[in-house]
């Protein structure tokens, strides 16, 4: 299981701030997880599509698609940041 967090617009549109996701053996990196979530269809497909400017972090560090993930990790998806 990995903990998946969503922030800001993604949290609102997907209707949740966090969930536990069981990783199939075929999903080994961030890109794989994202594709698995997109396959849910609907808002997931729309919001997490590769063409959307979604940012991600693995264990609280900014991460790109080929970063490996495994059970126990904390993965977050969010829009480009707008603080400051």
């Amino acid at each position: 299981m990995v903990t998946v967090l969503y922030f800001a617009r993604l949290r609102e549109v997907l209707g949740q701030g966090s969930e536990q996701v069981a990783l199939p053996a075929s999903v080994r990196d961030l890109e794989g997880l994202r594709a698995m979530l997109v396959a849910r269809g609907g808002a997931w497909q729309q919001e997490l599509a590769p063409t959307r400017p979604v940012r991600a972090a693995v264990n609280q560090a900014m991460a790109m698609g080929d970063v490996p993930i495994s059970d126990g990790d904390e993965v977050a998806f969010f829009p480009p940041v707008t603080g400051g």
Partner: protein
Amino acid sequence: MTVRVQSEDFDVSTEIAALRRGNPKIGAVASFIGVVRDVNEGDAVAEMTLEHYPGMTEKAIEEIIGQARGRWSLYEALVIHRVGKLRPTDQIVLVVVTSAHRGDAFAACEFIMDYLKTRAPFWKKERAGGGARWVEARETDDIAAERWRLKG
């Protein structure tokens, strides 16, 4: 280095005094305060809500300060960023940098702000006349952060 994410307001004099305390070698104190404006991209702003990623936000800012310390000769650096509901004229963010000489303090303070705008996980939602909307990231912020790659 000090990093605080908080809903409470802050006082710049108090923070600078704490940062300077006990170090008579400091010659320069550069600081920046970001403030909520009553307009953004032409729309009147009534209120905004700032969301963050607890844990990662603090780490990201510490990392940014660490990079600044690697590039310039600094004594102390402080970042306070507010979250929750804010209104026009409220203070959002404070960055203070102390050093022996002003060039280092100015450069590090601006670097920290530019990187914070593009790397620290905060998101703003504005409530204007017509409703609420998430603020979109600005390309000019990416450009501001990017230019530090070419420098010193």
